[in-house]
């Protein structure tokens, strides 16, 4: 069943505009739990409570505040909060285009598909142009009262929009550099390169399944049927040898297995 579009927008690149629809690319497959009152297995509910009196405070009496310093709050009124909300808009604007390798993947947060909404020529034309130039457009838009930044790129002929994290969110690890004295010796480097080469393959995302999720569901089913649940035992790790010995033994083991099945 085709997914429903979350939002309709006008995508603008310079003077060019294309009508698009936005779709979530991620679908949630997690096993969801609810919090229950253990005694009677009914779902819990939450309420805001005055810690002094233990009395619940009704929703309409709640005030929203920003803590400006420990113990100092500034109350913001409903009107003030509404005034800070960005003005609604249908525009996705791209004002900066970068070569793909210029954008660190750590900025990317969540992928969405864009689909054509009446102008397929324009839609596929832009996808081809982005792919051909190996480029990413830095896009900005306002959706559901929130400002977003994102990366517009082409994937398999379609347009994708990846929301991007805020500037302050990435921890700047670039400043950390290991000291030069830590260079491993040439023999170890050679062995490590050989070992990586024996383990090299094409990336195949379909080779990985969330087995843990399947186990959780199986556990729940067994429990629901009233069966006794048995758990697997942890395996022991072999003792660590010297780095060079371990590399050599790994290579030898790899050769014996010669082209063994798709491991995980």
């Amino acid at each position: 069943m085709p997914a429903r579009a979350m939002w309709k927008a006008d995508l603008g690149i310079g003077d060019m505009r294309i009508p698009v629809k936005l779709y979530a690319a991620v679908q949630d497959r997690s096993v969801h739990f609810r919090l229950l009152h253990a005694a009677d297995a009914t779902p819990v509910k939450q309420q805001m409570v005055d810690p002094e009196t233990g009395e619940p405070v009704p929703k309409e009496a709640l005030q929203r505040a920003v803590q400006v310093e420990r113990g100092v709050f500034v109350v913001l009124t409903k009107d003030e909060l509404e005034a800070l909300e960005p003005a609604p808009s249908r525009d996705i604007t791209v004002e900066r285009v970068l070569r793909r390798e210029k954008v660190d993947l750590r900025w990317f947060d969540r992928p969405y598909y864009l689909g054509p909404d009446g102008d397929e020529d324009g839609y596929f034309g832009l996808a081809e142009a982005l792919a051909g130039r190996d480029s990413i457009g830095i896009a900005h838009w306002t959706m559901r009262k929130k400002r977003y930044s994102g990366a517009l790129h082409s994937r398999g002929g379609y347009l994708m929009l990846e929301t991007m994290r805020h500037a302050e969110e990435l921890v700047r690890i670039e400043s950390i550099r290991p000291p030069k004295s830590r260079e491993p010796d040439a023999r170890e480097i050679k062995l490590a390169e050989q070992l990586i080469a024996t383990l090299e393959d094409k990336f195949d995302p379909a080779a990985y399944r969330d087995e843990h999720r399947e186990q959780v569901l199986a556990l729940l089913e067994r429990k629901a049927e009233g069966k006794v649940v048995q758990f697997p035992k942890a395996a022991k790790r072999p003792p660590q040898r010297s780095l060079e010995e371990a590399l050599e033994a790994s290579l030898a083991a790899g050769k014996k297995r010669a082209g063994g099945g798709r491991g995980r």
Partner: protein
Amino acid sequence: MAAEPQTAAPEARAFWSGTITFGLVSVPVDLYPAVRSERVPLRLLGPDGQPLVRRYFCSADGEPLEPDDIVRGYEWDDGSFTTVTDEELDALAPEKSRDIDLRRFVKREEIPAELLERPYVLAPAGESTKAYHLLAQTMERTGRAGVATFVMRGKEYLAAIFAEGGLLRAVTMRFVDELRTPGDVGLPPVRRAPAPVRKAFERALAELERDDLDLAELEDEYSAALRELAEEKRAAGRDVVEVEEAPAEEEETADVIDIMAVLKQRVAGERREPARAGPDTAAKKAPRKSGKRASGERAEELERLSKQALYERAKALDVPNRSKLSKEELIAALRKAG
């Protein structure tokens, strides 16, 4: 800054500790998040300005509940529940899965961006950092990324391991069934666009092409505006509430600075020294209690956080199903995770 005892900054707690196995080589690592939330959380106050706390009540009889009264339940289609304990869930993830087993290496560029979820830094954790440096340098020089699965906090993760600047980084990835295909979404089949249209877009792209990202474009304008408005009102003395029993706020910034300090030391191989923030970070350092907080106090703090702040924390701690959790469920989940 409050005059709190601060002889040595507490070492940032790793989110996860495990072992990268690479053939028969074991590389012990600690995993730290490489993103943090900078959002300004909104707190809820009562009509008289008193900071409120969140409490659970039984939806059937309205009875107030303590954390010990609460269990996790899975809801079946018929509305019945099967409860499950943390011990049962933990037992599904045997110790073996604390390994990031690097059995597969691929070209870095083969890993698709849309599968990448959340970046982490892997810091060397063992007595010796030799194997860590060897692996990081070799992967970087050969342009290879590792692909592995591991279990963290009751959830299985697929991760890509990248090496950059001598550091190993892990980025958790979505399993392929968590990503819709264009067909699932109902997009029309790809077809060739008329050449003039493509060329017009190529010209438009070329005109907008720049050399680098402008970080100013990625600033969180809403949080900045919120903070600014609050500071303005405070300066004008409007709607300011001072609370004697100041609730302890989460010091995420301090944690992050400690992570940097930890990383710098670990990478340099100075394992045994306690983490200490460098002079460049000292000025920004927020007060933070040394030592462990009593769990009761920690629980209180959670009650005072906004749902957004709780969600951000749940995200950082990789609490499963967090986007579907209500505020009180987030608090309970964070208590369990913390």
